[in-house]
């Protein structure tokens, strides 16, 4: 088991907020980098003001909308509009290998820490500006959230029922998509810098990165004029597929028949009911055109069984089936337990709470978030003194100026 971490020694000045950019810098923090999250009390990061709050009690340091997205980071509270605050920001930029920000386009320039200044302070820095629409173009100042980008990209159009207005994906879908692309880009830029000493500016649009998730459908429209829309849980190429209601309150199991063999196995697992013994159902085309009828039959079979039982019976038969799991189910999931996915960490205000772990495991390295999310301004002294090497007098002067809020 190695104790060396992938990003040991890498320093990140993190001017990000909400979800997308903090998730991106979290990859570096969790894997060894020293990441200083710059934030302020006035106003706090929006996600500190929305739940879920520990025990349902609101509070700046109680939100897991912030916490689970900011593990292994240090928090510096800093008023960037205060001249002393701006000075500290410049010191931090000089210290960093990577600067990441996700303010509205132009805000970093207004604060006097746009890329031209950053490059002068730190010529080999990698600076990342990420926003919904990118740093250039008429829409670059578009100040939206991941659900706005999700609508523009086309994810709303494809989520929900064909006879109803679109439901859209849960909340800010592109905030869950973009960080992976951006983290990979930044890791490549870091490797390039390690080999060549060259830093650079990265202009990353959440919309543009997210469109990779619809790449075949975009080509299909451009080539043939065909457009995708929402079709509930059905597939265009296989049937039956759906979430089927089970016993208990609002309990569901997803079942996905992908081949004729899956269908035969499903039929056997259900005890070969007579309704399913219909020649029309022996081909994909037949099942696609009789989907409603088949759904009715499957629902009758699942109605008196728990979703867990439905999943297990079908998995024994080799049919793809999975419980629609809520957050409480995930905590009990045996596979996630086996992977030690959730990690309990001691938070300075709310105590021991679980955090989501990593989606990948590197053999011989127990990777997971290293320490709990910070309270707002929890590490002011550590950052100024230990990381930036400031003296007591300097720190006092900055504190008196009112910059550390």
């Amino acid at each position, binding site marked *: 088991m190695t104790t060396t971490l992938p990003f040991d020694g890498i320093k990140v000045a993190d001017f990000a907020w909400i979800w997308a950019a903090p998730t991106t810098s979290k990859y570096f923090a969790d894997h060894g980098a020293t990441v200083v999250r710059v934030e302020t009390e006035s106003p706090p990061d929006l996600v500190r003001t929305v739940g*879920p*709050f520990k025990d349902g009690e609101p509070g700046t340091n109680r939100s897991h909308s912030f916490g689970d997205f900011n593990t292994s980071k240090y928090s510096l509270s800093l008023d960037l509009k205060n001249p002393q605050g701006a000075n500290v920001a410049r010191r931090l930029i000089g210290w960093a290998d990577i600067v990441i920000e996700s303010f509205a386009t132009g805000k970093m320039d207004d604060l006097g820490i746009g890329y031209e200044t950053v490059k002068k302070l730190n010529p080999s820095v990698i600076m990342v500006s990420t926003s919904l629409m990118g740093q250039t173009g008429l829409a670059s100042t578009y100040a939206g959230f991941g659900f706005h980008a999700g609508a523009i990209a086309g*994810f709303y159009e494809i989520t*929900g029922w064909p006879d109803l207005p679109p*439901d859209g*994906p849960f909340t800010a879908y592109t905030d869950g998509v973009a960080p992976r692309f951006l983290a990979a880009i930044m890791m490549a830029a870091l490797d390039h810098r390690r080999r060549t000493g060259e830093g650079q500016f990265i202009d990353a649009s959440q919309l543009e990165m997210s469109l990779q998730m619809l790449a075949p459908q975009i080509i299909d429209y451009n080539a043939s004029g065909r457009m995708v829309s929402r079709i509930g*849980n059905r597939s265009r190429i296989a049937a039956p597929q759906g979430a089927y209601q089970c016993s208990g309150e609002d309990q569901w199991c997803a079942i996905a028949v992908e081949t004729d063999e899956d269908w035969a196995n499903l039929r056997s697992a259900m005890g070969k009911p007579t309704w399913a013994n219909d020649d029309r159902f022996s081909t994909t085309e037949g099942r696609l055109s009789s989907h409603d009828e088949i759904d009715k039959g499957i629902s009758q079979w699942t109605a008196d069984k728990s979703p867990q039982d439905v999943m297990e019976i079908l998995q024994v038969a080799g049919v793809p089936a999975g419980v*629609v799991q809520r957050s409480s189910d995930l905590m009990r999931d045996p596979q996630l337990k086996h992977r030690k996915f959730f990690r309990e960490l001691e938070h300075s205000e709310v105590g021991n709470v679980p955090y989501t772990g990593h989606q990948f495991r590197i053999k011989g390295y127990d990777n997971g978030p290293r320490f709990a999310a910070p309270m707002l301004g929890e590490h002011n002294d550590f950052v100024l003194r230990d990381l930036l090497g400031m003296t007591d007098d300097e720190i006092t002067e900055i504190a008196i100026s009112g910059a550390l809020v």
Partner: protein
Amino acid sequence: MLSPYTVLDLSDDRGEMASMILGDLGANVVKVEPPYGSSSRRMGPFLEDAPEPENSLQFFAFNRNKRGVTLDVTTKAGRAALLRLAEKADFVIESAGPGEMAKLGLGFDAFEKANPSIIYVAISAFGQDGPQADYAASDLTLAAMGGPMSVQGNPERAPVRLSVPQAWLHASSEAAVAALTAHALMIQTGQGQFVDVSAQTSMIATMLHARLAHAIQGSDMERAGSVLQAGAIELPLVHECADGYVVLIPTGATMTGMVPWMVEDGIVPEEWIEGEDWATYDRRFLQQQPVVYALEDVFDAIRRYVLLHTKAEMLDRGLRDNVTIAPINTVEDLTKFHQLEERGYWLMAPLPDGTDTAVAGILAQLSETPLDVKRWAPKLGQHNHEILIEMLGMSEAQAIEGGATVPQE
């Protein structure tokens, strides 16, 4: 940026985007397919609706910046050729499922023996081991077991997934991050790494702040259609407009710009403009502090205004007045969004049928090492000659024995 590195992509539709990302970032990617082609070549949408291996747009979209060879790894010659390629490679990415590669004698051990510093990334539904590692999975069941379905969809109906498959794309993009993280570790230790990526956990990530709701607040979040659940406040996100739907919430900036529009249309009286400090309206209603105009009246005004106007009209006017309105775009609407054109996002790609078509562009704009697409998806076995015969020095007979059924010049 990654030009010193070579990636062997042994994956199928469940992992192809991982090496595409590394290729987009400059890596030299060799896609190794079985002689009958990757599974994604049999997945639609298909060009001209013709399900031929060279017509799959799924394959075309996620295999750019790669050269392609065919090897039959069930043969000794095919395995030997693959391990020789591995000697020159830095990364191997596979998605065959737990233990499948090891059964062929091509597990991590075999690759590590050929190349002690190799980064071997295995993408699977639930991870390489554990009680459910061998469960059958599909996009739908992963969306269920990973959690996002529980918070998606109309509460009167079943939970829903996105109706374009996403799970393996989430896992693949996570695998690109995993590969580079493990590589950063290898740079320090010199040791090869085995990396185990789980698609189920990559779906959990997309559940955002709902993923730990029960453990933190004592209750799960539930599906609520298109309503945004912001603590105690629920905000309808989707509103019907003259030609479809838009997403819109009354943030401070949006209301500041939009109230005058509503006055102009006679939706609300003129006193609304001065009657409220609109810039701080959202922070006050989120924290349940006093507001002059109740949230339900504001939403009612928004609904009535939006019904009178089109998506494109409101988006354009919004861009001028700092009003954040998002049209619920079809693919057609998206292709007309001027911002993407202005930034040069769309790339023209030669499709296998000889026509040129706009496709999703580069991942981001970089000042010193601009990204580009050097080559589009390879035809089956397109680079067999170049890689197997010229690079590895195999004879044509050896290449054919190894599964390179159509060595091409």
